[in-house]
């Protein structure tokens, strides 16, 4: 049967993620070609070292994008995350550097403050009815002002070695392998349980060969990932955190009552409320999660720089929001995946990383990123044949 334009369209809209991975492959191939240097023994972009760097660079945007997907799916927006990240990173630096708090205490307080401020934003939006655009625009200014106040406008350094690990550490090879093995085992168990469940309820089950094929593919991907990173210095700690976040958020989106309600609220809030769902609570919790991710991102930023700076996280909200849209999240709410947001973040990070390697000037980098954002959404609209506005 010949493939028609419609078939391709349907395939791409159903497997958006495949289209996005193709985009990544294209970008990587381009940079691989451009950075090829025979004297240095091949392409400088496609090395284990650069792969590790790239992932570390995307970690912060990725963490924010994971929660931002939920915010946008719920039909809201959060412009304050960059400033909140800065504030939380600043608090971490002050507690660590000035007051010499133990790491656990610092992390605990920062997370608590992050969730509280996120919930406050959510409460103002969901319960008081102030549009999130306005609440978070205000938050953007307030939190940035607070960072300047807390840090006194100067860089606070150096942080303790324990804190640095969060941003700069690597897992020993054995630990990386162990985690990979455990992850694969979890995937196998989950696949088997799903099959058993489907059989129990007389639902159609995919053939065993397909199932094994799927698992082998997943296993190969995990193996490639860990072996590559181990061949440099090991799995970076922030990347591990990001992967855990990705896993947890995907589970929240697909397997929890709360996750399903986020999508329902974003698609039709009134109908959801009339189904007996406390929609305000759902929205507030989503902002709470956003605050939590700001705490993670703030800690990682401070740890990575080994310092708290007043400008930390400047513009991070735009990277996170752009990542979500590149990853197929709909502006109107109700549609979007965590994996998509993560892939969007990877695309942004790849562009940053590749262009920096090529020595492209910063102003060009910004222009290219902006163009890619619009292009990605345009392609999505054209390929799916719908206007997702």
């Amino acid at each position, binding site marked *: 049967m010949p493939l028609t334009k*419609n078939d391709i369209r*349907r395939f791409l809209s159903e497997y958006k993620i495949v289209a996005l991975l193709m985009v990544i492959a294209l970008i990587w191939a381009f940079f691989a070609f451009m950075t090829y240097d025979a004297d240095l023994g091949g392409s400088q972009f496609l090395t284990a070292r650069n792969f590790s760097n790239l992932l570390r660079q995307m970690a912060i945007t990725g963490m924010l994008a994971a929660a931002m997907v939920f915010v946008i799916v719920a039909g809201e927006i959060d412009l304050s995350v960059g400033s909140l990240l800065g504030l939380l990173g600043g608090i971490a630096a002050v507690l660590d550097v000035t007051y010499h708090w133990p790491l656990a205490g610092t992390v605990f307080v920062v997370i608590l403050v992050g969730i509280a401020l996120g919930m406050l934003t959510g409460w103002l939006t969901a319960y008081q009815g102030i549009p999130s655009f306005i609440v978070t625009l205000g938050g953007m200014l307030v939190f940035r002002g607070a960072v300047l106040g807390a840090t006194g406008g100067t860089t606070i350094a150096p942080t303790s070695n324990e804190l640095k690990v969060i941003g700069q550490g690597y897992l020993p090879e054995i630990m990386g392998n162990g985690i990979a093995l455990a992850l694969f085992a979890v995937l196998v168990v989950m696949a088997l349980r*799903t099959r058993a*469940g*489907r059989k*129990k*309820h*007389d*639902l159609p089950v995919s053939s065993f060969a397909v199932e094994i094929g799927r698992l082998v593919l997943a296993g190969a991907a995990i193996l490639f990932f860990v072996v590559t990173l181990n061949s440099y210095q090991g799995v970076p700690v922030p990347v591990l955190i990001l992967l855990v976040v990705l896993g947890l958020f995907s*589970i929240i989106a697909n*397997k*929890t*009552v709360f996750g*399903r*309600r986020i*999508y*329902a609220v974003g*698609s*039709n809030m*009134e*109908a*959801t*409320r*009339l*189904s*007996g*769902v*406390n929609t305000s609570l759902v929205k507030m919790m989503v902002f709470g999660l956003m605050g939590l991710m700001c705490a993670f991102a703030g800690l990682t930023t401070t740890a990575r720089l080994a310092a708290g700076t007043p400008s930390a996280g400047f513009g991070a909200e735009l990277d996170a929001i752009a990542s979500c849209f590149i990853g197929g999240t709909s502006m109107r709410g*109700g*549609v979007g995946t965590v994996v998509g947001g993560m892939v969007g973040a990877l695309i942004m990070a790849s562009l940053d990383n590749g262009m920096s390697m090529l020595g492209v000037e910063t102003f060009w980098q910004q222009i290219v990123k902006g163009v890619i954002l619009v292009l990605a959404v345009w392609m999505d609209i054209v390929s799916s044949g719908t206007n997702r506005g």
Partner: protein
Amino acid sequence: MSEFLLEMRDITKEFNGVKAIEGIHLSVRAGECVGLCGENGAGKSTLMKVLSAVYPYGTWSGTILWEGEELKARGIRETEAVGIVIIHQELMMVPHLSVAENIFLGQEMTTAGGFVDYDGMNARAGALMARLKMPDIKVALPVSSYSVGKQQLVEIAKALNKNAKLLILDEPTSSLTARETRTLLDLIKEFKARGMACVYISHKLDEVAEIADRVTVIRDGTHVATRPMAELSTDQIITLMVGREMKNLYPREPHAIGDVVFEARGITCWDTINTSRKLVDDVSFKLRAGEILGLAGLVGAGRTDLAMKLFGCFAGESEGRTFLDGREVVVKEPADAVRLGICMIPEDRKRHGIVPLMGVGYNITLAVLSRFARGSLIDSESELAAIHKEIARMHIKTAEPLQPIASLSGGNQQKAVVAKMLMTMPKVLVMDEPTRGIDVGAKYEMYKLIFELALQGVAVLMISSELSEVLGISDRVLVMGEGRIKGDFPNEKLSQEQILAAALGKPTTAAA
């Protein structure tokens, strides 16, 4: 010149290789009204979208002749320019704009200086409304301050203003009161006499019988018959539509009526805009287990506001007490109502019923999702099994259980919304216009379901503007008018006239 104003020949439209309509013919003479009948999903709307160029020329096959010449319109502007105007079932109003602004939307009158000529527009709009026998509508007020029924008439004014030669009315009376319907039908007759042609799509066959000269019936996207109305009875139309004989429209079943389960005392609701106006005024009633209580009345009588209040989602100020099983209950939020076992099927399916982007299945389980959770994770398999069960039980026609609900026909969407609420095992079920805009087959299934629920002891409060439905289904009929209870009749030898008289506040010989 052809004998027909419009001829559609051999129209076929495909979606992704699936034929929605195939080889359909439809012709209309000037001054003629053609009734277009068919069950929901039969392809009526698709056909009309082809005609009005919502699907532009080239995306379908066949020929459209307009005044004898082939019409190749690429957009709705071109079809409107020649005089084809469609009034959709779903109102196409911009709620915050005034009545006049809505009427002139897209072709605003301007002054010499290029500014909008509000005085001119308001004057013409006022004249149009007077022609529609609706002089009490203030054309400078936002259209949202009027009921759905009045808004429908504004749509018609909008069409008249476009100098329509052919008016397509898609279920125009689905939300009108008996009186408004009367006005509309008389208007159409008047338009016909002046030479305007009309395609009238409706499930209300007595209306079709009254105004149509000929009837075209389609079924499953194909042309079944076109006959003069004089040769047909409404029963015959139904037979043509469903392809089998429909003996009994209301599958009444005897059911036992138990004790009072629900009581409302002194319910009063105030308008959100005009806060001194009472939408619902001191309403009290009792509802027994297994009882089907019909709530009749004119649109705007406050029935929907009452339902909203009982379900905890009335937006304005309100007071009154409610009792469930003899104990007073406080319902502040729909969540409270659902927890207590009071459920509502909302009137506005698109706005309050469905979550459009989510699958049919996920819509069905939305209210009871926690039931499928083990720990904090949903057991997807047992959820999916329940979804399959509900889809089969409610006869919901869907290709995939998780297909977005927005892609289903209205009747199937409604079944899913009802299924969602029934999943919560309600003791009291408030249904607000449960059969609005759904086809004969789906209606029949809905009635059967209502009787089944009554048999199980569920107390049903059914709001309906179709008096024959109220009489066909209810055990007892409450009539509301101007926010107050105007009558409470056991459904024995009750006539439509009696209900209407009560709703209009005429003195009645209390049948109760």
